């Protein structure tokens, strides 16, 4: 029994160590965000800023490296994408899950495969097409694309959720004279609501993190938060403090999302191939 206790403690310590190493870069960034310039450039490094300063965050929201318009853009773009992608995807997923559609399996696999296409192959032609129709550097242009690149994920996951619903409930509703859209609205949707929420959160997460499309297709008016963060690298002397602060602002919702959907992350990132 004593030996077991020692083993337990060892495993605990070991896991704590692994976890700390894994997130140590993030912890370092967190510390840097609260440092003054002198501490950032100090060697040997100053581990814990004292006293911590909020100047880096102030410069992000109000100062000379103001990021608020880009944060706003990212929020608008992500939320619009979630709304529209989930709407279109729910309809399609319901169609695939509940009706007999000729060659539906082939169509679903084709939809899934569009998800796996390298974005670089899409962004070059889309840049030229957008240039011709004046959609470059617009929020609605980016939203159009983000919907397309989140639809496959959303359709696939939603159809998994719809297929898990027990048939009997819906059959009973049909016998009671429920119309198709009534069935979807009053019976099926409430039952898959948790799944719907997970898909919506994932879609927000993918859009919030996306770089390549935003980098190529926006320049000023519709520039997103990730692009504006990546620009810290462009200058000769990188302003580490504001960079760290902007990064913390960007990852705060991501950390919240991670805790919120931790049970579904494996299923989400493997498109339902691995369940938990």
């Amino acid at each position, binding site marked *: 029994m004593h030996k077991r206790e020692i083993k337990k403690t060892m495993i605990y310590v070991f896991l704590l160590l692994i976890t700390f190493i894994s997130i140590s870069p993030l912890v370092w960034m967190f510390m840097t965000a609260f440092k003054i310039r002198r501490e950032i450039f100090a060697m040997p490094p100053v581990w814990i800023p004292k006293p911590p300063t909020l100047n880096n965050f102030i410069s992000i929201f109000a100062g000379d490296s103001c990021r608020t318009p880009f944060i706003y853009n990212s929020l608008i773009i992500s939320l619009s994408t979630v709304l529209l992608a989930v709407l279109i995807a729910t309809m399609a997923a319901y169609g695939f899950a509940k009706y007999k559609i000729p060659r539906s399996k082939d169509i679903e696999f084709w939809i899934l495969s569009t998800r796996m296409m390298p974005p*670089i192959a899409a962004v070059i032609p889309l840049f030229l097409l957008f240039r011709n129709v004046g959609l470059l550097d617009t929020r609605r242009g980016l939203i159009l694309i983000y919907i397309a690149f989140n639809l496959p994920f959303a359709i696939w996951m939603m159809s998994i959720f719809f297929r898990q619903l027990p048939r009997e409930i819906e059959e009973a509703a049909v016998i009671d004279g429920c119309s198709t859209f009534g069935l979807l609205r009053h019976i099926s949707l409430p039952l898959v609501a948790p799944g719907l929420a997970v898909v919506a959160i994932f879609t927000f997460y993918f859009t919030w993190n996306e770089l390549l499309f935003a980098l190529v297709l926006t320049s000023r008016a519709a520039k997103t938060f*990730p692009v504006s963060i990546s620009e810290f690298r462009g200058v000769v002397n990188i302003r580490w403090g504001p960079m*760290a602060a902007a990064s913390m602002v960007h990852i705060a919702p991501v950390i919240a999302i991670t805790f919120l959907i931790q049970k579904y992350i494996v299923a989400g990132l493997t498109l339902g191939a691995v369940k938990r």
Partner: protein
Amino acid sequence: MSKNRRVIKYVLILPAIVYLILLTVYPFIYSIKISLTTLNIARPYPPRYIGLGNYAKLLSDSIFLIAMRNTFFLTAISICAEFVLGFIIARIFFIAASFKLKGIGFLRTIYMLPMMITPIIFGLIWLYIFNPTLGVANYFLSLLGLPPVSWLGKSNIALYSIILVNVWEWAPFMMLLCLAGLSAIPPELFEVARIDGASWHQSVAFIELPLIKRVIVIGLLIRIMDNFRLFDLVYVTTGGGPGSSTETLSMFAYRQSFMFFNVGYGAAASIIILILGIILAQVLIKYTWGKEEYA
């Protein structure tokens, strides 16, 4: 009823299908068309049709071949390291779970944070850590009495530094998959193995690895696809340099198209990436959902 149903199902699925054709299939076809021309958006004169000229040029372009080699190398090393690390750590988490240690779920969620944040930010953090004068990486080396390393500034080291960051960020993904696989193994099997006196390495070789094979292969295939289109991390850390030592396929196509404005040439490179992507996607789909009924 029946006619109504027939209409409704198409009303439900057609918007999604039409949307995807317009925004993915059509651009790909358009991209193939561009890749057969000399289109350069910085030049005023119209593009010329040159057939497969761009593709022939790519195959003799030393930078493209380096990008191809780098991508293969980076992918191979990354997925091996991610798998080995991920499996070992998953096993420790698994043992901890079997002891019913408190707070393990919380620890696991904290552990996976690096893969959840965007590679741009993770890359920028490492840019700071790797900085030759104010980075902590060289500070730790100096504590050990080792000379400073130019992590991202030397062409023979930069690619390894990027692999290090990539593995650091994505080992948690393989760990989560392995852990999901391990948790799905019936506990009786471990019990039987224990009674038969199997050692831990026999358990790994004859029970754990064979039984979680499917999960491992799915994880590796997903990571191979991710690495094949790796862009964000390289873009913020080295931008493909120094020279072209960390150039990847996506980076190459991006630079050709949007820095040199050689869109025709860049499109041809992206079509090659696309073909590789389609092959990988088909393998993944066949392997994952091909045999059994999914859902």
